[in-house]
């Protein structure tokens, strides 16, 4: 399967030092049956070791936390790392609503506590043509969906990012995309074991610019599908409106699966710039893989679909 638990030897000790971890701040790692603390210390936990990112090395903490797209905090790649400190992540409430038996407003701690946290290393491919390899910490999205007891009528999950102008001061002109940021998945995509809700990075608390305190990671889709700072999940019958596909339907489809075969009017998707600090210009150019290299796991979700039409 897909889970890889990082060993402490792979991470510089500076990155393991728990300056401000959930362990201290929120205590829910401790409350998670057994695994939290053990994983945190980098000891092997019951998890298989077949990494789905191949033998690609994860990018550094520095790289992952200074090159972000989070337009609520500015349009430049470095803006979120400079500006997102104004985001208040405690307390945090996640609203679960729509077609399910257990809707409600959940304190983040209660939302996470029933799940077992895992460390997974995933590739992240941005639609703009760059990519990284990132060691996330989180739990399967399917956990939450099962707990909500979704009605059979529900076919999609819609997600919403926090929108609070006080915490997300718009700089300059109002961007023409509408807030709050919205994303969505088909229910079977959401239930797929690779779909992951993330609360940590490199075993530490997820930094604000990476979508704290709770974000989605869907590694076979372009990065913008992996919505950040989630405040709402709704189970719905019809395909939900999503931010980028409403803004430019010609450019961004609802599915937005990584696909080198589908031309994008803005960026070539045949290759990508894998961020690599060891290179002169900061990246290696590599071929982009169908479904970002996760085709064996997820291609069956799209059987019989014309992926050029449903891009």
């Amino acid at each position, binding site marked *: 399967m897909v889970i890889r638990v990082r060993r402490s030897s792979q991470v510089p000790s500076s990155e393991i030092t728990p300056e401000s971890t959930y362990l201290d701040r929120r205590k829910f790692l401790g409350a998670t049956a057994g695994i939290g603390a053990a994983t945190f210390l980098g000891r092997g936990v019951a998890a298989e070791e077949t990494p789905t990112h191949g033998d690609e090395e994860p990018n550094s903490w520095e*790289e992952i936390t*200074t*090159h972000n797209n989070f*337009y609520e905090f500015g*349009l430049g*790649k*470095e803006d979120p790392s400079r500006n997102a400190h104004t985001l208040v992540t405690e307390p945090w409430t996640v609203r679960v609503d729509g077609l399910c038996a257990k809707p409600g407003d959940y304190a983040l701690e209660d939302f996470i506590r029933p799940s077992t946290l895992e460390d997974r290393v995933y590739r992240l491919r941005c639609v703009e043509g*760059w990519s990284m390899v990132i060691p996330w910490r989180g739990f399967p999205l399917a956990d939450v969906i099962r707990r909500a007891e979704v009605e059979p009528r529900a076919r999609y999950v819609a997600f919403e990012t926090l929108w609070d102008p006080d915490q997300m001061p718009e700089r*300059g*002109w109002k*961007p*023409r*995309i509408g807030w709050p940021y919205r994303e969505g998945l088909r229910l079977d995509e959401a239930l797929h074991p690779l779909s992951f809700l993330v609360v940590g990075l490199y075993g530490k608390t997820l930094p604000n610019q990476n979508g704290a305190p709770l974000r989605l990671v869907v590694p076979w889709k372009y990065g913008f599908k992996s919505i950040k700072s989630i405040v709402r999940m709704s189970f719905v019958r019809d395909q939900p409106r999503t931010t980028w596909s409403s*803004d*430019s339907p010609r450019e961004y489809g609802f599915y937005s699966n990584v696909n080198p075969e589908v*031309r994008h*009017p*803005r960026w*070539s998707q045949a290759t990508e*710039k894998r*961020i690599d*600090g060891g290179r002169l*210009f*900061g*990246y290696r*150019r590599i071929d982009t893989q169908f479904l970002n290299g996760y085709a064996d796991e997820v291609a069956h979700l799209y059987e019989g679909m014309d992926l050029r039409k449903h891009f």
Partner: protein
Amino acid sequence: MVLKGAIWAVGLAPVAYLIVGFVRGSLGLLPVDTIILVEGRWALVFLLATLAVTPIRRLTRWNRLARARRLLGLFAFFHASVHFLAYAGIDKLFGLVAILEDVRDRRYITAGMAALLLLVPLAGTSTRGWIRRLGKRWLKLHRLVYPAAALGVLHFYWKVRADTFWPLLAALTLAVLLAARSPAMAPRLRRGQRSPGGKAG
């Protein structure tokens, strides 16, 4: 001339900034992208500055400004070339197929390429010798700067995804500069002007 010295300083500063930034590693994780953005912006700034010379000169009667126009135009071409070379050389490694595909499939690249190609003959004929040799035709040829500027602005507008403030500001600036040359505006602006140096461009 102080004015020309100032233009040289401003014209070369972005490149100095990018070189120092590249060496220090302060251009972000993808320095090529930063180089492309910075140089694209300066290309447009110099292009609009070139077009602003005549209206400003007429308004202020500061006629010596006309002498700066060629230098401004050449810096526009210089930054557009660095912009293009960063894209074509570093990002695409001069991969002709990939570049041509971009020009064909991506309208913002099509517009940018057209703008740059229009500037090539203008830069090439900017010397005194060519001005003399071409005579009246030189003025005609150099009117290509208008479509070049319009395509540059369009390129910018099409490239931007969310924040259209700067491309719209550039479009507004271009519109004002063009209006200032329209026959309706010209007499008013020309009032009080004595020297007949008002060439097009």
